[in-house]
């Protein structure tokens, strides 16, 4: 018989809530321009010449309550761009924990983990996250 592991919504919600709770005391969301050196393969890889464009201190707590395997951000996630560039990936960090994802231009359907209508950012501009949802599917 083929492998066909599944979890139910309750287990999925418990799992994703545990990850979200890591950010109960807030964290830092930094959005980078990989500046042609590439996006790190893994979330625990060291950064090289990638350029941080904006750093957002996330609220306390940063996420709400999970439901159906999903948990959304809470509060306002916004900050000013400090260095001009084109965002290509982000890291959400608290202590030793790091989540990493891709950033790009909004399309339909959405192509990236984090999607913006405009990816030509200038220093002094403002970046605001409208949605930021972690998901653990039950399948």
């Amino acid at each position, binding site marked *: 018989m*083929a*492998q*066909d*592991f*599944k*979890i139910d919504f309750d287990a*999925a919600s418990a*799992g*994703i809530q545990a*990850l979200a709770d890591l950010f109960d005391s807030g964290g830092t969301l930094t959005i980078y321009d990989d500046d042609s050196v590439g996006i790190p393969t893994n979330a625990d890889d060291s950064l090289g010449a990638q350029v941080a464009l904006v750093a957002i201190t996330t609220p306390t707590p940063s996420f709400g309550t999970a439901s159906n395997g999903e948990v959304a951000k809470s509060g306002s*996630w916004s900050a000013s*761009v400090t260095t001009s560039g084109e965002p290509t990936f982000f890291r959400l960090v608290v202590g030793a924990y790091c*989540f990493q*994802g891709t950033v790009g231009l*909004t399309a339909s359907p*959405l192509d990236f*983990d*984090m*999607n*913006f*209508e*405009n*990816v030509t*950012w*200038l*220093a*002094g*501009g*403002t*970046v*605001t*996250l*409208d*949605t*930021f*949802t*972690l*998901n*653990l*599917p*039950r*399948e």
Partner: protein
Amino acid sequence: MSEKQEQQPGPEKEPSKKPAKMRTPKVSIRATGGYQPPPEPKE
């Protein structure tokens, strides 16, 4: 009739193919945001 034929194979075929490949639950993220450019300097 021709409308029915166009609707059926489209959206339903793809999802039924994917579960055939074994997937383990994986955390994903979906985020959307906005960018407001800096105000233009006034002379």
